[in-house]
């Protein structure tokens, strides 16, 4: 096995913070902790070459760093790349994650290691990151675990769950069987938690990805406003058969010339709540009457002459996102300045 190792300026023995600007260089064979890697590999393989880059350089001159990494990866005939471990060093961790990503782009398996709270652990979701302690004191424990996982990746062996193989979750979940029925596992986990014994949650709760807030509407008086709802307000009779549940698409309906949505002409087909009130007065989900009043009074220039709707009930996130993206494109095409979205 031909192994390529990525190190920062500190672990390469060049220097500390003051040398964090050193540009990328490739050295033959192992450097610094690479020697421990070589010892661990024994007859299995060699550390063919080491790519070194200053942490500041990598982060501030990303294009050049990437170019150097690509050249190293392309020229090296490497079977496996090991980056770091970076422990708690944030810039180093980010660089390691990027090196892993580039290696994967070139079809070369890669592993890195860092403390679970190193921001680099979140940089590239697909990276195999072995959790380590916070400082280099953990090197003797970290490297063997990194090599063990690296061996499997290089061999193309199937990689088991994160909790069994010893890497940080990569944002992918797959079904599998556990050793006991769920009710027993839940009771056992509670007993462990109460007794202060270690336990591992089977479902880590993560935050959603957030979006940079769009800038405010500066001049509402001249703005075009659109209204969108997940409340499934449709023309009576539901001519396009919008589903009450598990809908994958969205619809648009005309508002031109309408001051109100009457219960004769519209209804609510959302299956996730008691929708009779919204069918009797669709305004409680699509507030057209209030919007027309405000439009007439000049609060904003014009209401877009159609509205968009879907059924926000048991909808797959992928469908929500796609519908959202399509609606967004449509509204941008209509030069909409701001959107009211009534969620259900």
């Amino acid at each position, binding site marked *: 096995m031909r192994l390529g190792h990525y190190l920062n300026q500190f672990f390469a023995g060049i220097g500390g913070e003051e040398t964090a600007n050193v540009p990328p260089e490739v050295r033959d064979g192992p450097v610094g902790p690479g020697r421990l890697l070589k010892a661990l590999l024994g007859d299995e393989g060699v550390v063919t070459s080491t790519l070194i880059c200053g942490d500041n350089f990598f982060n501030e001159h990303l294009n050049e760093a990437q170019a150097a990494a690509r050249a190293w990866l392309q020229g090296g005939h490497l079977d496996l790349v090991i980056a770091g471990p970076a422990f708690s060093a944030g810039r180093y961790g980010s660089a390691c994650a990027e090196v892993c990503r580039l290696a994967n782009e070139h079809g070369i398996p890669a592993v890195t290691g860092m403390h679970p709270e190193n921001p680099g652990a979140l940089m590239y*979701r697909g990276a195999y990151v072995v959790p380590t302690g916070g400082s280099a004191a953990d090197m003797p424990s970290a490297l063997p675990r990194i090599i063990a996982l690296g061996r499997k990746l290089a061999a193309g062996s199937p*990689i088991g*769950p*994160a*909790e*069994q193989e010893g890497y940080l*979750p*990569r*944002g*992918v*979940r*797959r*079904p*599998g*069987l*556990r*050793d*006991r*029925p*769920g*009710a*027993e*596992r*839940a*009771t056992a*986990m*509670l*007993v462990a*938690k*109460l*007794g202060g014994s270690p*336990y591992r*949650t*089977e*479902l*880590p*709760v*993560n935050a*959603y*990805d957030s979006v940079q807030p769009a800038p405010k509407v500066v001049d509402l008086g001249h703005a075009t406003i659109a209204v969108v709802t997940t409340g499934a307000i449709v023309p009576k009779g*539901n001519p396009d*058969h*919008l*589903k*009450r*549940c*598990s809908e*994958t698409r969205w619809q648009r309906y005309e508002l031109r010339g309408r001051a109100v949505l009457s219960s004769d002409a519209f209804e609510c*087909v959302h*299956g*996730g*709540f*008691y929708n009779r009130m919204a069918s009797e007065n669709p305004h409680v989900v699509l507030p057209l009457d209030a919007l027309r009043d405000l439009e007439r009074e000049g609060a904003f220039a014009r209401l877009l002459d159609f509205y968009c709707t879907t059924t926000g*009930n*048991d*909808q*797959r*996130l*992928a*469908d929500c996102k796609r519908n959202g993206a399509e609606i967004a494109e449509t509204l941008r095409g209509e030069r909409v300045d701001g959107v009211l979205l009534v969620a259900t």
Partner: protein
Amino acid sequence: MDLQVGTFAVDGVAFGSPPGWAAGRLVIDPAQVRALALADPRIRGVAVDLVEPGERARIIHVRDVIEPRAKTRGPGHAYPGICGHPPDTVGSGATFRYAGFGVLLASEVLPHIRRDVSAATDSLIDMSGPGAVTAYSTLRYLVLTLTTDPRLELTEWNDALRGAGHRVANAVAELVRDQDPPAAQRFALPAPERPLPRVVHIHTLNASMVPGIGTGIYGYTQHALPVLLHPNEILDGAIAGDAVVTYPGKSTWLHVNNPVLPALYARHGTDVSWVGSIISRTRWGSLGEKQLSAYQTVKLAQMLNAQGALVTWNHGGNDLIEVMLTIQGLERAGIKTTFLTIESDIKVVRMTPALAETGTEEPPLLFSVPEANAIVSTGTLAPSDALPPMARVVGGRELVFDQERPDVRTPAGESLDLEALSGAYSPIFGHFDNYGLGCQSYFDY
């Protein structure tokens, strides 16, 4: 509350007369069953069938599964407060039951009810093959395929079906009243001999947003503030389902067979002191109501001096909010929680690797709080292949997969590619293992 539960395991069911149970074989008199079902004039027709696990059979239009249970000693009636049974508090004395057997109510939803209650979907249970993924595929059934007066409005339809099911279940349970159960177990919560951590079971329970239907506690179905039950009350059927909404896999059978109850009983007196089950309704309409229910649940747990809580729920994006608020409140009050839950269910109709894999694109839970740090996931249950054709179909003939298109009817006996037919929900009855009957889960990769 001290309850002796006597179990009569069922290894085989046959039609015959006289009816009775002996050495694992249950004999049912079909004429008697038909007469009981038809005792209510709202029931216009009934077909009676026996179905076994392993058969090439598909049961469709499943409305409920009821395990026959009878109180042989002590106050009250099994499944109290419904179908005319008195509301007396149950959970003590003795109760006889069958294991591995259920009375299954099948009835195609009436067109106007399908229109008004979109959650009243068509469901199926495959007794063999790739679709036999749930506990329901392992039970023996007496299937009652009922036809009702087509003009019944929702609550009457529900009452008629349920009444028929419980009349029959009662009669079957009564067959063994005077016999000695081959297996018996005592259920009680005596004070432990040494101090043990006090745990409470928080059994959050969806309430219907449609008045008059849904799972009930002693028949009480409406949204209400939390109530404290002794687990024995649940074993005696105090929580019972309806015949309307079967998605996602709610049934009366599941409540008396809730595996959380024996799991906690097994630990009582050795690892924990179980102080009771708090039933909190979920699917409240406003944030204020959700908060109130959650806060009152936490307060009840505190008044019980609980140190730990095992929280379960039975599905619904909306419901998850108050469940998570409850978990948050418990943890903030110093009560350690574990949460037993299914996982982002709607995406998996077929368990092929591509379709079963999930992650950041579909978060496992729609809503969560940082305090929910001890979660057991029962993942999801789905077949990995299309369902094969089945020689025998019981309960009806055709399935509607799109509630908006009831005119599009698929013959139930043919091969069914659920992924193509159902879109983002599965019609397999019970495919949400809410209470952890099975070992399936999800792992991070």
